[in-house]
């Protein structure tokens, strides 16, 4: 039986993309798989009694070494802020390519804590900073110093000791360009070095908290229990900076979604599932319930989604345990069709993620296809005709063409870059200034405009001649030729409409990172947790591949 790939017109809608969950394809999970046989070391631990100073961790295999340099700083409570306008953080980090020399460590000491206003070099790969969750951090220090383990209820509620507020890579602030390292086998997967940084930062948070507790009371202090460490991750506050990324990298977006869609299609085409596969699927699903019940958020929007998800998943569990016969042919296809018929988007995508769990042989080869050499698809095929372009648009953007951009509600917002932080922002064009400097992220509106002009243009005209008079539509002309080859490269929605929820775009990207427990703090930023439940570096050589659900 052949199953069709899901329709991009449905899957690429923002509400659906904003319902995606982490899966076996997620970057933090594939990072752990790739680096499980690398040697982990703590190369330097130079902290004072208050936990301020320098720490270095490394991953090494043969001649290749990646070193995380951590600079822990003393800042006052008033200076601590997760907002992008902050200028000081509890700790700042960079992932260095190789073993840093003393002069590298000193050079970076002056630059890394300054983050966006510092300068990195081609020897550094990623850059980040993080703030303590002060309430949790101080509680843990206090308890450990008294020889007690911390209150698990408090820890579960927050889920981390530190949260990062930005992770930069790919040439930002002088960091190494991707092309310098793209042929390395071990990083043949998106954001692998960013994942490494966050993973090593997590270890730093445990080592720092133990160190401070020990100094506070050398005679009574105990170390944070490894099982508790394992259940702590790294928090992250994420704003709109992430949203334009998925619009600006269409072939990369396609490759992420395509991998997930191909995996789902191949799983639906399995005629008979083995008992082991069924067991993994059911167990993952059952165990995952606690990830939903421990999902804390004050966001009414997210709370509604969680409640609906929990209700839907419990009903689905009852269905597969009491009514569904896994002996039937094409069991996962039947499950999928049942979900489409009966359940909400959030639940469908949750179970789709779960379906990937038992099928390493399908998922692992797809992970290697999730990167993209974007320059390869940049040049517009200008020998094609206006008719070709019009047909592509009518086929690939059929829903977009139905949007009426004469209505104010459909072009209410605009994207711009803020002058003070050079960060993407989203604003109401009728209430705020700056829409004349709008970023080219209103793809739906511009595609519609392109289509209208194409309708009035001679079919046989070639694109080189068309662009002479229509240079303002060059960016969407390029995109249309990209989507011809990459069906999942475009969000099939209006990104400037009144009803847009920008965090849906963040959620899509974060789900591919492997984030858990999305906690929207507004419609423009959210908090998440990464690596919660993940194996500790010392356990990497042999860990449970389904740790997300079994921790």
């Amino acid at each position: 039986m052949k199953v069709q790939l899901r329709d991009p017109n449905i899957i690429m809608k923002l509400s659906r993309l904003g319902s995606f969950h982490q899966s076996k394809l997620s970057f933090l999970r594939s990072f752990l798989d790739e680096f499980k046989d690398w040697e982990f070391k703590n190369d330097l631990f130079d902290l004072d009694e208050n936990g301020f100073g320098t720490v270095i961790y490394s991953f090494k295999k043969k001649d290749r070494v990646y070193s995380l340099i951590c600079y822990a700083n003393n800042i006052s409570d008033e200076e601590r802020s997760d907002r992008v306008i902050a200028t000081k953080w509890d700790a700042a980090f960079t992932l260095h390519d190789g073993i840093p020399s003393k002069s590298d460590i000193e050079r970076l000491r002056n630059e890394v804590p300054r983050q966006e206003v510092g300068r990195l070099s081609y020897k550094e790969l990623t850059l980040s900073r993080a703030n303590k969750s002060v309430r949790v951090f101080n509680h843990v220090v206090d308890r450990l110093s008294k020889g007690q383990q911390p209150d698990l209820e408090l820890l579960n509620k927050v889920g981390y000791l530190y949260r990062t507020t930005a992770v930069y890579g790919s040439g930002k602030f002088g960091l190494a360009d991707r092309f310098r390292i793209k042929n390395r086998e071990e990083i043949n997967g998106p954001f692998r070095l960013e994942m490494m940084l966050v993973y090593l930062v997590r270890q730093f948070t445990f080592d720092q908290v133990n160190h401070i507790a020990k100094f506070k009371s050398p005679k009574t202090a105990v170390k944070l229990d490894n099982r508790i460490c394992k259940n702590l991750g790294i928090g992250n506050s994420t704003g709109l900076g992430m949203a334009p990324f998925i619009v600006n990298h269409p072939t990369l977006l396609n490759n992420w979604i395509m991998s997930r869609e191909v995996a789902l299609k191949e799983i639906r085409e399995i005629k008979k599932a083995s008992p082991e596969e069924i067991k993994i699927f059911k167990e993952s699903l059952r165990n995952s319930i606690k990830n939903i019940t421990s999902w804390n958020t004050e966001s009414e929007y997210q709370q509604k989604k969680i409640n609906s998800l929990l209700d839907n998943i419990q009903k689905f569990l009852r269905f597969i345990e009491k009514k569904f016969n896994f002996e039937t042919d094409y069991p996962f296809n039947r499950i999928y069709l049942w979900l489409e018929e009966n359940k909400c988007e959030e639940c469908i995508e949750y179970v789709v993620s779960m379906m990937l769990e038992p099928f390493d042989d399908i998922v692992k080869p797809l992970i290697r296809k999730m990167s993209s050499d974007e320059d390869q698809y940049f040049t517009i095929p200008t020998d094609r005709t206006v008719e070709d372009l019009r047909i592509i648009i009518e086929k690939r953007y059929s829903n977009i063409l139905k949007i009426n951009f004469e209505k104010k509600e459909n072009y209410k917002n605009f994207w711009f870059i803020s002058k003070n932080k050079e960060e993407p922002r989203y604003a109401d064009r009728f209430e705020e200034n700056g829409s004349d400097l709008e970023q080219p992220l209103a793809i739906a509106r511009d595609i519609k405009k392109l289509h209208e002009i194409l309708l009035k243009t001679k079919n046989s005209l070639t694109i080189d001649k068309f662009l002479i008079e229509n240079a303002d539509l060059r960016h969407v002309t390029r995109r249309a030729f990209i989507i011809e080859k990459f069906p999942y490269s475009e969000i099939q929605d209006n990104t400037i409409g009144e009803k847009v929820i920008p965090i849906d775009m963040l959620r899509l990207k974060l789900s591919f990172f492997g984030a858990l427990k999305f906690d929207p703090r507004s419609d423009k930023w959210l908090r998440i947790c990464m690596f919660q439940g993940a194996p500790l570096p010392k356990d990497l050589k042999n860990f449970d591949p389904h740790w997300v659900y079994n921790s």
Partner: protein
Amino acid sequence: MKSLSEIDTTSKRASKAVGFSWGEAEEIGKSIRLLELFGFQGIKNLNHYYNLKINQKFENLSLIKANNISKNNYYCPITLGINFLDQIRSLEKYKQIKFNKVAFPLLMLSFLSRSSEIIGKKINVRFDDAEFLLNLNVNIASNLLNNDCPINADNFEVNIIDNKDNFSEEDWKSLYKISEQTFVEETDSSKQGAAGAGLTDND
């Protein structure tokens, strides 16, 4: 040192700011990135050009022909470059394309370099005493690498080079003969057992 990603982004934003469309600005960002990657002064020339552009008029040529004459102003190298790139498949037939006046000619090179990749042919560019060989967008060879490129080029000449060997038949034969020293003489029995042996070739 600035990363190529920073060079691309800043060039793109500056290009939008001086009046190019976003789609054109994307092309310019990539183009300056390429020039800097190949060791040419892309940022310096772009910055100089955009500062002059505020007060000085440059000619925009839309449809490129074999011989292009601007009576007054110098051609804008960016519009020219983008149009050359877009029209390369129809320009290929001319073999030689001339422009009498091009401002900041260096800025046009990366568009020609990408054009060379599209048609799969090397492109030779000459103006004043400068000469460039654009090799299928893999690299650019030049006699100008460490010198400033002229701000204006009079008689800018583009030659599309047909794909042909860069060496004589004699050189090739001589080298091939040396390479034969790695071959082993076959015995009769190995000839009889080789692929296709024992079958009729007329089946």
